[in-house]
């Protein structure tokens, strides 16, 4: 059958397979999304009027939005690269000869399945002004830090994120590493390539597809760390960890639909941009590989 013929015939079948998903997905995601974008251009009164970019102008001028956006960028910008480096490093170590490899792997992945609410208590005990972390630090003569109420909260949120998600990425990287044929390294060794050279020209190159997926998952998961901060620090945490999600939640609570939808639309725009960029990079890289 010609490709065109298959395309036509498949389309009907595809429609049937997609139907349940499309209906629900439109109802609960696409239409709400479109409504959100629509609201972001309207003013607040009941018989609403188109106000163009007014909401956006107001939003960008708002100090708490600036703070939230900056913090979110900072958090994702720092935590995702750190996560990449850390999980790749651990995966490479785990890929070496170690004892109890499968036990270790289990231990690294376990935090992933632990519900957030059930470890909040531990974070509180560790991070309080009178908490254990400060107790341990004081043994070594360090000053106390009020972890959740100073700029240190930033670091705490990143560490919690790493704790939770490092296992997921290790699994992905391990799989990627095991796909690289061993003789590539042997050949490289014979040709006199050092460890760094091997890492750069073999490991990194062949891990790129995995890397792409890991970055996407890391970004998604970086948004989920909000739950932790929310449960530890509430609606208004310390300034340094006040994220876009806090902002949106609070706009929701104060019924400021305009600011909320404008903020949401902008966030969608940014994420869209990042994803398209990643896709383009990946496609270009694939061509280069072939």
């Amino acid at each position, binding site marked *: 059958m010609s490709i065109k013929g298959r*395309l036509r015939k*498949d*389309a009907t079948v*595809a*429609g049937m*397979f*997609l139907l*349940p*998903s499309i209906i629900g*997905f439109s109802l*609960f*995601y*696409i239409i*709400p*999304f479109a409504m*959100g974008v629509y609201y972001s251009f309207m003013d607040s009164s009941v018989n609403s009027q188109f106000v163009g970019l007014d909401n956006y102008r107001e939003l960008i001028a708002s100090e708490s939005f600036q703070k939230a956006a900056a913090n979110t960028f900072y958090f994702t910008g720092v935590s995702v690269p750190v996560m990449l480096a850390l999980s790749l490093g*651990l995966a490479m170590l785990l890929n070496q*000869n170690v*004892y109890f490899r499968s*036990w270790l792997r*289990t231990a690294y992945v376990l*935090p992933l*399945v632990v*519900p*957030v*609410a*059930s*470890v*909040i*208590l*531990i974070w*509180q*005990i560790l991070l309080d*002004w*009178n*908490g254990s972390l400060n*107790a341990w630090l*004081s043994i070594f003569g360090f000053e*106390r830090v*009020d972890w959740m109420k100073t700029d240190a909260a930033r670091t705490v949120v990143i560490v919690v994120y790493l*704790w939770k998600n490092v296992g997921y990425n290790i*699994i*992905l990287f*391990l799989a*990627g590493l095991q796909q690289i044929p061993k003789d590539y390294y042997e050949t490289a060794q014979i040709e006199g390539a050092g460890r760094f050279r091997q890492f750069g020209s073999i490991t990194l190159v062949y891990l790129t*597809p*995995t890397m792409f*997926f890991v970055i996407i*998952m890391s970004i*998604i998961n970086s*948004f989920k760390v909000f*739950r932790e901060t*929310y*449960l530890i620090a509430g609606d208004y945490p310390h300034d340094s960890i006040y994220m876009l*999600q806090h902002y949106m939640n609070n706009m*929701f609570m104060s019924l400021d639909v305009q600011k*909320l939808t404008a903020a949401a639309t902008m966030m*969608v725009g940014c*994420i869209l941009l990042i*994803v398209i960029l990643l896709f383009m990079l990946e496609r270009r890289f694939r061509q280069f590989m072939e």
Partner: protein
Amino acid sequence: MKSTRVLQKLALTVVMTVIAVLLLFPLVITFTNSFMTEREIGINYKQIGQINEVTAGNRNSFVNLKLVPDVISLEQYGKILVSNSIFLVMFWRSVFLVVPIIAGQTLVAALAAYAFSKLQFRGREVLFLVYLLTMLMPFQVTLVPNYIMADRLGLLNSSNAIILPGIFAAFGVFMLRQFMLPIPYSYIEAAKLDGAGHLRIFSTIIFPMIKPGLAALIILLFVDYWNMVEQPLIFLDDPFKQPLSVYLSNINQGERGVAFAASMLYMTPMVLLFLYAETYFIEGIQLSGIKG
């Protein structure tokens, strides 16, 4: 030569074990502390949340984090399970939210993933990109529109306001598509020659072949939805409809005594499921990632 290699292996193992112990530390504390008596918990942790000025100069004001209880007791578990039945009610409420989401999303997503991976149609790539994008968005982005939608559909304050969006979330489609992509099209062609329709091919060939993917998806969804906090808080006004996740984040602030035991019971299903199905879980995550 050989002994240095063994030494290296040993050193590496020690380093990796130390990291593992650090990662598991919170879980171990929760476990051991859940067997302490109310009195001991009270004494150990009473300093939490005290005003900084009072304790600033005091070297002995720290909490007393203990790994081993003075007396091993089941007092806290008894309290939650026997004298305070709300925990069990909430536990089942969580189950009744999570199970329909998992069952629904797995089925709906498997069907859609088949179309996205094995059928040709116009706009496939664009539509899939739309799915992918919603998956990337934090929950707050669709909050207001979703709220309005739930209101129009009469779903507010009903668990359907949480279950239905859960069923149609894009994650399952994405994940299962990744699993179906590497299956060669020749399987489908061969089945077609034997006279099988697509529904038949899907249910008897593709579906059984992606079992590891289904297992992984089920676990990942379980982990995610067992945990949800924002959705129930916003869509369910009624405090008596809240799942365990919300209830637990409340008791963490109040009764610290039972919180450890409650946390333990709350995480146990997840941990057991993970340990039981770890191979599937890991295989699932790996396969979905490699073919990115």
